């Protein structure tokens, strides 16, 4: 199972802060997870997760490119950060 988290504007637009994603047979990479969420959850999710400034993190480290996931990973989607 993957733990998937959403923050800030992304969380609000999806109406979802976190979800558990069943680990599929054959495994999954980050792009595939994003495509599946889009396909399974419909247009509004496609639109939100398809925004080109979305940042992705795997196990609390930002992933600049696609990468293979492992069962148990924590994946997060969030907009550009604005701290300080």
């Amino acid at each position, binding site marked *: 199972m993957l733990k998937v988290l959403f923050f800030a504007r992304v969380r609000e637009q999806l109406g979802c802060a976190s979800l558990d994603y069943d680990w599929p047979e054959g495994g999954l990479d980050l792009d595939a997870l994003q495509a599946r969420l889009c396909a399974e959850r419909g247009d509004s999710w496609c639109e939100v997760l398809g925004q080109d400034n979305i940042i992705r993190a795997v196990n*609390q480290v930002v992933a600049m490119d696609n990468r293979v996931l492992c069962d148990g990973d924590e994946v997060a989607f969030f907009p550009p950060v*604005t701290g300080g």
Partner: protein
Amino acid sequence: MAGPAQPPRITVKVQQQDFDVGQLQAALLSGAAAEGAVTTFTGYVRRDNESRAVEVLELEHYPGMTEASIEAIALQAATRWPLLAASVVHRVGALSPGDQIVWVGVASTHREAAFSACEFIMDYLKTRAPFWKKEYCEGSEHWVSARRSDSARADRWKQG
């Protein structure tokens, strides 16, 4: 006689409560009078942001990742400059104009290292640390968007 260099003392806190800059600075010191220089930065909620009158600023973070990534950047600063201690406190939750948001304090023997490391850590907090700000202004709310100048500023450290 100087012993082997001590690793710098690094503390990172993300919290809702306000903080006392005097206490934080005192806690940065080792008590051994090794520090010659302490540089601090405090960020505040401004009443006017880009001509909007801000009533409430709400700050969200990514629990766990935020703390770990700030600690990593403070350690990275300590490899670039000879630091004795670095401390970061960042608030989350609902804040009002005039409230303190963030405090970064750096202690070193000399001021060059203290200034550079403090600015380096602040640039990271502004551009890479997972915090998000939402402003409430005159009945409407909106997420603050990233300043392009902030990213450019953080990038310049890559050439250092």
